[in-house]
């Protein structure tokens, strides 16, 4: 897998922790288009890792494995998921 991802500067996001809620969910807003997105469970974990500066896909997979998280992003895997986020302007590749 290639690339190093970070959250787009055009997004705002908030997860359960920000609101004092025990929810593994993140709500993300594209501030330039006012589009809203929601990521749950594994998607939330990937987002939080990227927000923490862990933007290398291999390292994301390793961190998730170390946390014992089961990540199944289907046919296209983690890279396909990241591509989707990038296509929607939620993350950028550096």
């Amino acid at each position: 897998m290639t690339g190093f991802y970070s959250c787009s500067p055009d997004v705002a996001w908030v997860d359960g922790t920000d609101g004092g809620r025990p929810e593994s969910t993140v709500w993300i807003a594209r501030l330039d288009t006012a589009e809203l997105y929601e990521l749950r469970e594994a998607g939330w974990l990937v987002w939080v890792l990227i927000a923490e500066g862990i933007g290398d896909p291999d390292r994301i997979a390793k961190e998730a494995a170390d946390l014992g998280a089961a990540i199944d992003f289907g046919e296209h895997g983690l890279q396909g998921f990241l591509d989707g986020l990038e296509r929607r302007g939620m993350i950028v590749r550096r």
Partner: protein
Amino acid sequence: MTAPEVPIWALVHLTHAALQRTADRAGADVLHIKGPATRSSLRTGRHDSSDTDVLVRPAHLDRFLAALAADGWTLFTGFEEGSPFGHAANYTHPSWTYADVHRKLPGPLLDADEVFDVLWRDREHAEIGHCRCTVPSLAGQVVVQTLHAARSHGSEHADAWDLSAPEVQDDARALARELKAETPLAAAIGELDAHRDAPDHALWEYWSSSESDRLDEWAARYRSAAGVAERWRVLRQAMHVNRTHLRIRLGHEPTPFEVFREQCARIAHGAVSVLRRARGHRA
């Protein structure tokens, strides 16, 4: 991946971030107030506000409102149609939650431009929606929440004040003094009697009391109005039917007859209040 229903508390965070972006692009100074713009140490529990509040530098108001419109916001309630203070306009957006755009804070007797200057001078930054937003200083946050409690008719407690350390309370008192907002601050923290001779005492006695009616409100506003022109404005407002409020209550645009009927109801309500007082039904 799309989220058709974002919880309102989360949407409040995201909306603050959206408003900051709009302000930045417009070159408008705004201070985020209340809700997640208030430090958690000043709140008794997690915030559950349903709208967002920003205070705009008065000189930047026009450009900010133009930028809001360009970003898809629609005016819901204008400045003159909202609260009796005429301090905020309410905006809606298809994606975001309601935004209350404040052109001034109810409470300070200092000019709105100067109030903003003072709050802006001491501003700090908060991460809301993981975006950098400008907020008042700690003492400023205490004053803003306390002044809001002062006009809640006792329904909102001065939590920020109660949760503040004595030195922060001292800073808040000094700030209130600078803003000429000592009377409303006192009203919220149970010290109003010490300001019995203040020109705005009647106003804040009304707003902080849980047992007042509309006649009390207009009487208090009349007594606190500075000058003949301001008193005349209060009298005209007292008789004016707020079409926006009526539209919201009726669920449709009011007809001329419905406005007329409301006008009559206001006069009748005022007369009943006067009669009840005359008969001694109220203390």
